[in-house]
């Protein structure tokens, strides 16, 4: 089990059994990002930009499944900053995706742990979001109420536009697990939305 502590956060990364049990069996599918990771470790900070471009939607979706939409942008930056600093502790360089995904999950947990007493209202929040945005956030809230394995997969699919194969590749989950999570999550979401859609 790989662990990295950063500012009070405990990042559990890699092919740890606990995460595997919680999120289903992780698979052998993994994007070959080892050369980029090697370049970052060797002292080429520019390589992190390429990793960011490839994995930012994944991190964004994972965070969006857990924290308010307005906070996600900054948290994505935080996650990649932590990943950049701690990338030397990554043992298996081919598993950058699952590693950064775990950093994002832990960052979301840390976000909720720090209770915020006051929160400034942005102009948009003060006026109220546009009707379409309001509906989108309402649906997003329903997805967030689903079990963790379903909500993360559904957000990556419906919000970030990733296919099941891409989700499996970047998160390190088995394709079968992703497929099951997608279909079961969609079924539950339909029930909550009151839709009569096809029962897949």
């Amino acid at each position: 089990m790989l662990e990295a502590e950063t500012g009070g956060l405990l990042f559990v990364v890699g092919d740890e059994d606990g995460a595997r049990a919680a999120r289903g069996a992780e698979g052998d599918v993994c994007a070959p990002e080892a050369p980029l990771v090697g370049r970052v470790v060797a002292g080429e900070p520019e390589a992190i930009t390429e990793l960011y471009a490839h994995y930012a939607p994944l991190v964004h979706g994972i965070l969006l499944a857990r924290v308010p939409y307005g906070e996600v942008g900054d948290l994505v930056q935080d996650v990649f900053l932590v990943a950049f600093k701690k990338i030397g502790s990554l043992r298996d360089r081919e598993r950058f995706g699952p590693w950064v995904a775990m950093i994002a999950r832990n960052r979301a947990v840390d976000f909720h742990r720090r209770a915020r007493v006051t929160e400034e209202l942005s102009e948009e929040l003060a006026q109220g979001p546009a009707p379409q945005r309001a509906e989108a956030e309402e649906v997003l809230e329903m997805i967030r109420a689903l079990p963790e394995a379903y909500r993360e997969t559904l957000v990556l699919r419906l919000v970030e536009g990733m296919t099941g194969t891409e989700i499996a590749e970047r998160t390190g989950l088995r394709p079968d697990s992703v497929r099951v999570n997608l279909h079961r999550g969609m079924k539950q979401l339909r029930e909550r939305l009151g839709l009569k859609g096809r029962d897949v």
Partner: protein
Amino acid sequence: MSDYLWDKTGEPDAEVERLEKLLGPLGHQPRALELPPAARVEQAPRRLWSRPALAAAAALALMLLAGAWLFASRVTGDARRTARDAQAPAPRTIESARDDSDAAAAHDDKNNVVTLGPKKNEGPPERERVGQPSRQQQSGQSLLTEQRRRRGGLRARAGSGMKGRGGAARGARPREDLLAAVTERQQ
């Protein structure tokens, strides 16, 4: 098998498409990564002990512990044996029996038998040597010896007139018998 929800292929699912259009704007908007200038890749903590080295060290420590335990158990075993031997009563020898006995010890040179007199307030005297005749046997033996002496004396008397017929050759007569025979002859 085509599955729109899985890989966006095949017959589109209207509800899934609607959700995609509704939620799509909330997705990630490309934004440059902003890293602080001071941000650097931290070196991974150096591991002093690799797993095989740790396993070897643990095995070695176990072997040392087992060896120490065996050595300690052997030493304590010897010490216990020595203590047991020291506590056990020493085998009684003639000298120790002499010291222990308050009675006078009678020593018979002929039979090399030590008979001990009875101790005060104690039972019958001990006979120390295994296989040696008992007190009764010894008293019987003494009687036999006395009878032999007497017979020897009679022979000496009888043989006083047969000088040189082998009486001296026997040579085993007690001196008292000889003296008695000489006295008789002089008389």
